[in-house]
């Protein structure tokens, strides 16, 4: 009971810090960075659903991110659609694309799945890069509008965009929390642990995997659309396979298959690369080996390792308490 309470207080504290941060510390550079971290985290949360919980490494994620970004960009600049409608449509389009890819891709297993989705990612990249008349090719897409106003609330300042990103991130985390702590989340984990076993107890593998994959594409699309309206410029580079690898890195550092992992990893990696200037260009010289070391020694990342440590400590406590009780009883019986 105490544990749950302290966890809740901690979460509340973090939420308060996140909300109050721009008011106490209105540094434009830091705010911009944090907004970007929030936006990327949304995509990493999506990535975590399929790769962390269901256990299928999807390498098409930058592609879905780009579909969301280009969806919003094209609908607003070329079709002249109002912002919020375009956002909704872009996310819907990405989800549908995710569902279609998922139906076919999920029939393949392990390495085949990774390579299949990698190919889908490359196809999306090459299409964006070559389809000059629609996407602007290598020149990219410029003049994407900032989020439109909702009634009296406008989003033309950095602080308001920070709150918008924070809102969508909170929504994402809330949704992931509900999923993970529901029967659906248990189902995902059951599939990850053993597909055969899950099948035996009557879980529909395909249906659940498809749901997970579509959800993960949805979040990637949302993240991409928000990114497009925040940066206001997008190029084919955002759909490159290296972007997927970066997301994978955020997830691994934070902790794959954990709820806090995506935000922790994204925050740490992005702020590290930004604060150490030399890292900007050659960050993979450090992070490449970090990824390898994590996989070798800490496959569950930072939050996963902390969780394991806490659990060990708690078990120890329970054990010592039990031992004490046993000793007492023994003494009592002897006496």
């Amino acid at each position: 009971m105490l544990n749950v309470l302290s966890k809740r207080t901690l979460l509340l504290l973090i939420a308060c810090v996140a909300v109050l941060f721009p008011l106490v510390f209105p540094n434009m550079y830091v705010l911009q960075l944090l907004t970007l971290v929030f936006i990327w985290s949304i995509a990493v949360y999506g990535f975590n659903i399929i790769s962390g919980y269901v256990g299928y490494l999807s390498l098409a994620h930058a592609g879905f991110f780009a579909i969301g970004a280009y969806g919003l960009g094209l609908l607003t600049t070329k079709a002249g659609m109002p912002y919020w409608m375009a956002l909704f449509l872009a996310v819907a389009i990405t989800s549908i694309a995710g569902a279609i890819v998922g139906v076919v891709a999920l029939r393949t297993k392990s390495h085949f799945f990774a390579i299949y989705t990698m190919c889908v990612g490359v196809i999306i990249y090459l299409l964006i890069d070559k389809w000059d008349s629609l996407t602007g090719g290598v020149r990219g897409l410029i003049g994407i509008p900032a989020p439109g106003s909702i009634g009296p609330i406008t989003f033309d300042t950095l602080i308001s965009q920070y709150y918008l990103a924070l809102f969508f991130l909170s929504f994402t985390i809330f949704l992931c929390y509900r999923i993970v702590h529901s029967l659906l989340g248990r189902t995902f984990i059951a599939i990850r642990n053993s597909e055969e076993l899950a099948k035996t107890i009557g879980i529909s593998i395909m249906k659940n995997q498809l749901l997970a994959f579509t959800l993960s594409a949805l979040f990637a699309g949302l993240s991409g659309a928000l990114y497009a309206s925040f940066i206001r410029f997008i190029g084919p580079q955002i759909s490159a396979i290296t972007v997927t690898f970066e997301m994978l890195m955020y997830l691994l550092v934070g902790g794959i298959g954990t709820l806090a992992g995506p935000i922790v990893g994204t925050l740490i990696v992005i702020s590290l690369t930004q604060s150490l200037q030399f890292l900007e260009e050659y960050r993979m010289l450090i992070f490449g080996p970090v990824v390898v070391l994590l996989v070798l020694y800490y496959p569950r990342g930072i939050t996963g390792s902390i969780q394991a440590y806490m659990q060990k400590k708690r078990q120890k406590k329970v054990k010592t308490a039990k031992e004490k009780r046993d000793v007492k009883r023994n003494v009592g019986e002897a006496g």
Partner: protein
Amino acid sequence: MELLFQQIFNGLTIGSVYTLVALGLTLVFGILHVPNFAHGAFYMVGAYVTLMMMVGFGFHYWIAIIASITVVALLGVVTQQLIFKKLEGADGMRMMVAAIGILLFLEAFGQFMWGTEYHRMDTPYGSVVNLFGLTVTLQRLLIIVAAVILMLALHFFLTKTMIGAAIIAMAQNREGAFLVGINANQVAWLTFAIAGGLAAAAASLASPINLVFPTMGNLVIMKAFVIIIIGGMGSIPGAILGGYLLGLTESIGATYISSDYKDVIAFLLLVVILTAKPTGLFTKGVQ
């Protein structure tokens, strides 16, 4: 008609390069079950070492190639011993992620050492010859011939020597190989050395007709994955057949369909194949 023959010849050239890269990948996958995403980075390192040897130290092309093969083979052994050896028996995702980590590091290392600009590699075989009415550069001929020689060498090594037999045995049945006393660790590092050497040879041969830059391995490795799936993961004849098939499809497709979308062809081919047959073509027990 002449255009078609010209494209077939070009397809054989690209196909030879793809085949050499795919052979290493399929060996490592078939024998050690490692989906080595870093193989493309080995390819890139191979090209740079050859270039550096020629430009920096003024060695002859052939000596540079041999140095490059040695360096990348060693690189393969080091990664195997330091990383993949420790992941033996781990699930597929951890292996893939480890390989991606190596790939990211090597690419950044290439950028750090040699910059992001494109380099041209000179070759002593730049002259043009006339072959049955086709005008071809000597370098392209060299690629095709060298690839065949390397494949034959690999074939004889695997079938005629004891170590080769041990490698084959381990590919066919791991437990059985252990039972008859095959040193698994030796086979593992040897396989990585061969794969690295093949990648270096392919890169050194192909670089004079392409360019050398830090991300040059990316498309090649992805196509090599396409090839080994088409050919059946772990199958050597499959990799050879798949490599040439892809090279020919690409170069003929570039001429008759669209040169802009020639890279899409390979990936669409794979997506279509896996859509029809989710376990890959010609799959044996290995998955």
